[in-house]
């Protein structure tokens, strides 16, 4: 059977500013071209898609595994762990809107009194046992408030499970 509906939409898009790792350096630039190669090496009709990215002022192609939504996530990959341990922090009555906390350990943090969370980026972060504001204390409420792109499959929710599950 032939494959269907390939290639899938790529994780990142042309025109987005993203961070990539090359020779153990994190570099942020605009994506100028994406190549998607599809084949079916195991002949199982599932197909395999390989995405490669080109960046402004970067002649080498960059594999998707080395491209990240935020510079924090690239640094997390380089470090091999959360880039900052903010566990236990009480964020008080601060407006956390647009704050980039991606790639951080936020376990046991207190967000119960914050005045805003819109676009607070927690991609690749760990929120285990964090206390959330009453208005955003379910996965659905939280994801709706921070918005798509501000969390990912590696975000750990307060109950210790992936936020996207």
């Amino acid at each position, binding site marked *: *059977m*032939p494959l269907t*509906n*390939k290639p899938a*939409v*790529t994780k990142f898009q*042309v025109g987005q500013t993203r961070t990539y790792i090359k020779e153990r350096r994190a570099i942020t630039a605009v994506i100028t071209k994406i190549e998607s190669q*599809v*084949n079916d090496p195991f002949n199982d009709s599932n197909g395999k898609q390989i995405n490669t990215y080109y960046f402004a002022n970067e002649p080498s192609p960059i594999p998707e595994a080395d491209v990240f939504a935020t510079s924090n996530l690239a640094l997390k990959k380089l470090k091999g762990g959360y880039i900052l341990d903010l566990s236990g922090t009480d964020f008080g009555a601060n407006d956390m809107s647009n704050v980039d906390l991606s790639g951080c350990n936020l376990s046991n943090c207190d967000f119960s009194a914050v005045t805003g969370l819109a676009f607070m980026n927690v991609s690749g972060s760990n929120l285990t046992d964090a206390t959330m504001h009453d208005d955003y204390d379910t996965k659905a409420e939280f994801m709706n408030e921070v918005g798509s792109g501000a969390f990912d499959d590696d975000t750990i929710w307060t109950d210790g499970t992936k936020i996207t599950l």
Partner: protein
Amino acid sequence: MPVTNKPSVTTHQVGATVFFILNGFPKQAVVEQTFSEVQDADNNNTGEQVDSYYLKGYSEKFYNSQLATSKANLKTLFNNLVDAMP
């Protein structure tokens, strides 16, 4: 603004049989690999996509404009090319 929702699904899929004319002869082959390039050269956020295909038994790269999904469609493709001659 970045481009959105690219690449689009290719016209021909891996594993599908396609029909084409090569060196003056009609041929058919199975798509082995597709290759999609997305750019936004004119910077209008639309994104231009170029799809190319590698077929089993052939080393050449083929483009959408060369391939048909059936013998009947290949005839139509050929007729359209002839009709477009000046």
